[in-house]
């Protein structure tokens, strides 16, 4: 088993590197799109209970639909390839970011915003200098959850020609070859854990700087 793993790794090195690159690219694009949507929607949702209900509901409904189903449903609309994969993964990644953003903004203590108003800050200044820094740790935590989830699910991208490490896993399933399944599975796990760790380090740096 170890031998066949080593052999596959040495004969397919270039291919695996391309797959890792594609996998990361898809995941990060999806995370970027989801962060944009999640944080903006989350900010508006945090301002009233009613807005929160209406904004989080559709995303929570969408999240329940399995990513694989979304991928296949998107094909007639967007086509195959990277665009569909990123869209499906972004849909998966929005809810954790959205929910954490809402909680982050809502948990900013009232006295802080009141003080800010009291010392003459404009609402815009209050947002950027008080609310955002206070909410940031929660938002980052949501992004981290989303990132790990997205990297694991990005294996599905291989089903629609978007590449990534899923190619090795699905090939292994088709051939019933455990060595390929282990290579693919372990690579995704390492990528997921590694990115999580890097994200933690980056978060610490940013929040300290703040």
């Amino acid at each position, binding site marked *: 088993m170890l031998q066949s793993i080593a052999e596959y790794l040495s004969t397919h090195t270039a291919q695996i590197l391309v797959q890792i690159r594609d996998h990361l690219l898809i995941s990060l694009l999806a995370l970027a799109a989801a962060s944009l949507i999640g944080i903006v929607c989350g900010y508006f949702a945090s301002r009233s209970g009613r807005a929160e209900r209406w904004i989080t509901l559709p995303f929570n409904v969408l999240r329940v639909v399995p990513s694989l189903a979304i991928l296949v449903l998107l*094909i007639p609309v967007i086509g195959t390839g990277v665009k569909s994969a990123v869209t499906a993964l972004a849909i998966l990644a929005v809810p954790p970011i959205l929910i954490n953003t809402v909680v982050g903004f809502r948990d900013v203590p009232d006295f802080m915003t009141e003080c800010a108003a009291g010392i003459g800050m404009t609402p815009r200044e209050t947002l950027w200098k008080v609310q955002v820094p206070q909410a940031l740790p929660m938002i980052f935590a949501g992004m981290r959850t989303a990132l790990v989830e997205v990297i694991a699910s990005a294996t599905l991208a291989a089903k629609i020609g978007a590449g990534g490490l899923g190619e090795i896993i*699905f090939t292994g399933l088709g051939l019933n070859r455990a060595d390929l399944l282990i290579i693919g599975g372990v690579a995704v796990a390492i990528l997921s854990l590694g990115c999580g760790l890097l994200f933690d380090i980056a978060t610490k740096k940013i929040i300290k700087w703040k």
Partner: protein
Amino acid sequence: MKKAIKTFAAAGLAVIIGAAVSGQVLAGDAIRVGSKDFTENEIVAELYALALEDAGYEVERVFDVASSVIHTSILNDEVDVYPEYTGTGLISILQLDPITDPQEVYDTVKDAYEEQFSLTWLDYAQANDGQGLFISKEASDEYGITTISDLQANAENLRFASQGEFDEREDGLPGLEKVYGPFNWKSSKVYDNGLKYNVVEEGEADVSPAYTTEGRLSETDKFVLLEDDKQVWPPYNLAPVVRDNVLEANPEIADILNKVDATLDTATITALNAKVDVDKEEYEDVAAEYWETIK
């Protein structure tokens, strides 16, 4: 709580014993027709079942058995007859080296099955559900590609849609390259097997692997099945595999099933598959309709 567990266990045991007993009883009277878990095999198995029922036999259908398991099922006396492919028998079950002559493959598996498993291969149908490659009609017209040799010569202009396993399997791309030479695709991407026709139809790829009787290949205005002009792939002819003791007890079923197989060629099977996979009819209806035309 303890009592509940006991009751539950007793009920479970009763169900298991009941199932075993009823299985035993049925095994006595009915012929158990099995099928693998894909459209074509279910249609053909249903045809066998209909033919046997029309001849007065009682039939029990054991359909949708996983392809990798059905051989074990017939060895374990859970199935009496099912449609098998000569190439599958040769390569997957007997694990012999590929042979490309249909008659030779059939003779080899027939002898080996009789000797090793006490199973009989009845006559094989012309229908060949083998490995193949198809190309979009546009690309075929543009480059004049109708055979795999043509394909190899034009590979650098073509985008390949693989299912991943085809690139690695001994009877996939590596096998082809040994005989035809290298295929330097313009690009090669992995897609889910269920999407290959959509991907080619929408112009996102030009070539993809297929099985030669897949329903969508009947859309000849969109897809062209390439001829394996150097005969790399072994034939996968359909034939009924029957347990010897069942055949001895009912010798006339050989004729009944052979008659069905004699009508099945690749075009017929492809058209039947298309009715289920493209037109979304039920396989039972398609089989019954076809049976009316040949009985």
